[in-house]
């Protein structure tokens, strides 16, 4: 909506008067510095073009450049960039350019690993590169206040760690067992960073983006784990084993996350929803890894696991996240329908019955809204 339309609405609502509206419009036209995004866009294209051109020139003459010149050039670039970033930080003059250059520094570290590998003909798996890169850039990621660097780091760590597990262990069940617990681990870290003591001791601009990134990864890896568990649950139980390793893993993780949620500053109802999600997830994990589940039970548990976080985000009025989980529930129901497809007639009756059930539930909730609100307040 344009500013003029917004101002008209504000005047109609009695929030501002005509003279205030004119003052706002005047300020927006003249006083506020305009970002010349158009020109900046062209400059960005020019910078990218120059950068790509330089890379192409170097690549064309790569053979002619002696090995030690390549290494020297790389380290001069890396050290110069590091020094520039340090001076910016010391003067507290961070801007869009310095933030972009920090991400470039992180990516340059990965390029350095590739260059060294090329010069010394070092082989090895891609996950080794990713894990090395994650290790050397971990502290820098912790100290950066941008969410993007956390996402870059988490992506490389997640892919590197998962690939390492897959290559090191032939038994795919064990791979699933460890990577399935990533969402729980990320959830635990997110909750731990919600601790009030931590909020008082660490700078807010540092750990807030980390918390947001971890929360998003908890949701993302949660979906991946739930899909994996659903696939596993349909496998026959003759190959499934569940033993001491699983219970130790669940106990340690469960203890950590349960405690982190308990000491988080959320309301009681929100904590209960998270605790419930965790318990259901562990229950589904044990069921999927020990017995062959039928489609109905698997669907029912999956929907329960998805419903609790949906309600959790609803309590924060996070519409998009709530919608995402409702969509996931709908997709799961669709998969169930495809799985048990009997006939069009039966399908039609089931869908109508489902719609009726949802309609009646919504009507009941609307009718008893006050009592439900009071009950929720009591739960807090």
């Amino acid at each position, binding site marked *: 909506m344009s500013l003029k339309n917004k101002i008209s609405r504000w005047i109609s609502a009695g929030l501002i008067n005509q003279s205030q509206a004119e003052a706002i419009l005047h300020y927006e036209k003249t006083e506020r510095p305009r970002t010349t995004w158009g020109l900046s866009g062209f400059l960005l294209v020019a910078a990218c073009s120059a950068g790509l051109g330089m890379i192409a020139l170097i690549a064309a003459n790569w*053979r002619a450049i002696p090995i030690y010149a390549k290494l020297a050039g790389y*380290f001069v670039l*890396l050290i110069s960039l590091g020094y520039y970033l340090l001076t910016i930080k010391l003067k507290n003059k961070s801007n869009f350019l310095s933030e972009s250059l920090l991400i470039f520094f992180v990516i340059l570290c990965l390029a350095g690993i590739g260059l060294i590998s090329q010069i010394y*003909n070092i082989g090895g798996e891609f996950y080794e590169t990713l894990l090395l890169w994650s290790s050397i850039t971990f502290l820098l990621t912790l100290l950066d206040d941008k969410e993007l660097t956390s996402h870059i780091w988490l992506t490389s760590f997640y892919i590197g760690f998962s690939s390492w597990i897959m290559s090191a262990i032939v038994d795919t069940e064990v791979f699933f067992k460890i990577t399935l617990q990533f969402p729980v681990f990320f959830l635990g870290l997110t909750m731990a960073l919600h601790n009030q003591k931590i909020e008082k001791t660490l700078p807010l601009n540092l750990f807030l983006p980390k918390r947001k990134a971890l929360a998003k990864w908890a949701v993302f890896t949660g979906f991946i784990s739930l899909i994996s568990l659903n696939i596993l649950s349909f496998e026959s139980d003759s190959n499934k084993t569940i033993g001491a390793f699983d219970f130790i893993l669940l106990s340690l993780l469960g203890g950590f996350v349960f405690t982190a949620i308990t000491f988080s500053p959320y309301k009681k109802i929100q904590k209960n929803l998270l605790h419930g999600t965790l318990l259901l997830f562990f229950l589904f994990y044990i069921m999927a890894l020990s017995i062959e589940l039928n489609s109905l039970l698997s669907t029912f548990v999956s929907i329960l696991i998805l419903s609790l976080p949906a309600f959790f985000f609803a309590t924060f009025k996070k519409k998009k996240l709530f919608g995402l989980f409702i969509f996931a529930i709908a997709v799961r129901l669709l998969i169930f329908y495809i799985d048990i497809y009997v006939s069009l007639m039966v399908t039609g009756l089931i869908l109508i019955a489902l719609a009726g059930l949802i309609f009646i539930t919504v009507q009941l909730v609307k009718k008893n809204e006050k009592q439900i609100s009071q009950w929720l307040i009591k739960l807090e």
Partner: protein
Amino acid sequence: MLLFHKLFIIALSFPILCLMGIVGMNEYQLRKSQTLTLPIQGYDPRDLLSGYYLRYRVKYGVKCPEKNKSKTKRRSKLAYICFKPEKSITYSLPENCSLFIKGKCDFSAFQSKNINRYYIPERAKELEKLFTSAKKKEVVLSVTKKGQALVKDIVIDGESIKKLINRL
């Protein structure tokens, strides 16, 4: 200086020092380790962004012994190939062996990391022809006391691949 700034200096220096350390380690290994020349076979060129890797298989001349029955389900097992005094493959660190390479046995074939490819800058078709038609192809390795090997050179019919590339 604030604690944060000190930590930031460490955070920026750490990757630089690590990468320099890796370069230093590799340089030391190339210069100070024992040299070993082994015949190679096979050829699998692949185009990369600015050149390609020459991939080959090292002919060790000896197969992995039958694996002991193990409870683990790993498909490959840590192994060592000894070259001096005599060629053999063992699953434990070889005693009285002055030159050995650490690797793994994948079924009956011994493999070691870092020695199965050599970087060739830019596409060199003539090199491909030379390599496939060559009678004698060898890899020159530098091997540390701990059994880690790095490729120093590839020798095609008695001539270093670096000289051949410069001539192309």
